[in-house]
């Protein structure tokens, strides 16, 4: 697999404030790459640099081996965080217009638009104006506008925010479809479960610096397992006194046991089996949410 979108040591300063400090990442063909970070960490600035809206002070960005240029504009699709479409223009007209601006011919744009409209169950909005649609539907139209010209590189800033669960699933499916067709997708969100589901590789930014980067599974492996989920048929006592256990919450329906050492898992299970029937025992992998809070949140304190 080749990396289509490559950022090398990209740096951006606004005055004396550094917005992005040396970000390096690569997005392969057919990959969804997660770009995470707290508000103001530099995600949007990074994305804007990728889009050519602003130019990096240092470092380079290449698109399929080429630097930014007019032909790159045509292969990039962008869904901004505050999505925008013309409020008073018909959905079909403006999306075809945007596709034409990216170098697609009208007939093909119309075909693609119809395909996506059908996929999103939104055929009836074809001739409606954007201001007549609900917020969620406007968002779907924004997504279509970003992908209608079949971009090879797709940048999604908070693609799923403000959508109901049904629509989130629809959009997720669409993103996966694009990935399977070979698009390189740079994806930013605050919803860690989406990242876990969609992304292989992530970069976590914190105050303009990269704090974590790499394969999600490897990142998780690097973090200690600190929780045990235990479900039993009757109450279990004495869990707190096992060495390595730092806290116990919950009831027999589900104890959440915090441990400082993974070695405490075996004594916990033995104790539980001695007192009751064990229905479920799991040494939990840290969630991305926890990892995120650890790597970003702790530094904030």
């Amino acid at each position, binding site marked *: 697999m080749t990396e289509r979108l490559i950022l090398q040591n990209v740096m951006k300063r606004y005055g004396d404030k550094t917005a992005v400090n040396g970000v390096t990442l690569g997005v392969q063909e057919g990959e969804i790459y997660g770009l995470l970070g707290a508000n103001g960490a530099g995600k949007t600035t990074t994305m804007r640099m990728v889009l050519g809206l602003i130019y990096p002070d240092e470092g380079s960005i290449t698109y399929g081996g080429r630097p930014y240029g007019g032909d790159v504009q045509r292969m990039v699709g*962008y869904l901004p965080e505050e999505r925008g479409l013309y409020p*008073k223009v018909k959905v079909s007209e403006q999306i075809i217009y945007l596709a034409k601006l990216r170098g697609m011919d009208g007939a093909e744009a119309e075909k693609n638009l119809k395909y996506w409209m059908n996929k999103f169950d939104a055929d009836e909005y074809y001739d409606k104006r954007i201001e007549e649609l609900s917020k969620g539907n406007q968002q779907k139209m924004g997504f279509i506008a970003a992908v209608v010209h079949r971009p090879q590189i797709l940048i999604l800033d908070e693609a799923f925010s403000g959508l109901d669960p049904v629509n989130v699933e629809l959009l997720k499916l669409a993103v996966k479809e694009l990935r399977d067709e070979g698009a390189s997708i740079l994806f930013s969100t605050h919803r860690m479960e989406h990242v876990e589901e969609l992304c292989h590789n992530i970069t976590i930014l914190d105050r303009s610096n990269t704090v974590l980067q790499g394969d999600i599974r490897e990142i998780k492996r690097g973090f200690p397992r600190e929780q045990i989920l235990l479900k039993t048929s009757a109450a279990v006592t004495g869990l707190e006194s096992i060495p390595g256990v730092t806290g116990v919450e919950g009831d027999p329906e589900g104890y959440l046991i915090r441990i400082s050492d993974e070695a405490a898992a075996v004594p916990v299970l033995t104790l539980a089996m001695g007192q009751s029937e064990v229905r479920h025992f799991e040494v939990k992998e840290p969630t991305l949410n926890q990892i995120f809070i650890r790597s970003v949140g702790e530094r904030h304190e």
Partner: protein
Amino acid sequence: MNRLGTVIGFTFKNKVRTKSFVITTLLLALLITIGIHLPFIIQLFIGDDEGGANKIGIVADGSTEIAQQIEDYIAEVPDNNIEFVRMEDGGDTAALNEQAQAQDLAGYLLIVSAPPGPEGTQETFPQVQYVSDSGSIPADVQIVLQPALESAKTRFITEGALTDEQIAQLTTPVQLNAVSYDKTSDTGGGAADGSDDPFSPMDFITVYVLMTLFFFSAMLTGNMIASEVTSEKSSRVMEILITSVSPLTQMFGKVIGVFLIGLMQIGVLGVTIAINLMLPYNRDVMAGFDLDFSQLPVDVLIYGLIFYVLGYFLYALLFAAVGSIVSRTEDLGQAVMPLSMLSLAAFYIGIFSLNNADSLLMKISSFVPFTSPTTMIARIGLGEIAFWEIAVSLILLLLSIFFFGWLSAKIYRTGVLMYGKRPSLKELRKAMKAYKI
């Protein structure tokens, strides 16, 4: 180039279909139609009274000689539509009023002899009153009556010392004709005879129309462009647009698209005027104004159009730049103020100097790019100008379009990324540096 066409097409199509545009155009067309028909409509109303002739009573009150002179004078006026009816002086005004109404008169003239002065002084000319329903004299009646009375007065004072010709000469006003140098030299200094047409009203009208047209299209379309850009920015469509097309393409596409809309609007109004003037009953009215369209000064028109188009682009680019630094439409009015003032200045300098097209102010402002589109037209049409002056002014205008086009593109590129409050010039410059634009 292809994408420029796409932007132009989209801008044009969407603007043309907006309600505001359709309504404005139709309203303007309607107003023009009414305006052109006004003389005809007025005639229609006048025509209702007595088949065109004004019947006016005249009460001599002893001064029958004066009354006779007035009648004689009026009878000799060509196209006279005043008809006099002698009325008997009943002594009191109430009876006269009744009599006038009974005979369906528009009004009557009451000649009141002044009381004889002390012995030896000359008798003074009697006072004349026009008595009517409304208590006012219609303008067309006054125009005829005034000289009639003056003539009668002259006759009264001179008491036959002058001949009729002398009196006629006395009462006609002196003609003061204005002729330019080259015309006098053409006719060998024969300016005074006034036989060669010294001043073409068509020149004046062309210049006036071009200036007004320029002012209105610069203002209207300029504001249209600025608000288009601002609304694109506030609806955040801008972020997608500038990642698709270069800002320069986008800006020029917008400017040209709106320009075409302006042209179309002018076209619609032009056709409206033409159709209205073609109507048979209006043709007579226009003939009355003594306009000859074959006198249309072609050179003024061509230069005018060149300056019009270039001037339009200069203003439109700046309006686009201003639109891009404003985030909300509410702030737009304030931001475009300097540009509005500038175009207003260009318009008024031109309009107020129409009769004085060679003044120093006009000479200077015809080289300033922002005012040259109006003042240069005035100088070409109504003043004295050398060809090199036109050329220099045109080159200056072109250069400034390139300069401000370049500057506007930079401002546009920066402005569309800046949200929040309207940035100051300093902030804008800083942002340009930060964004490396």
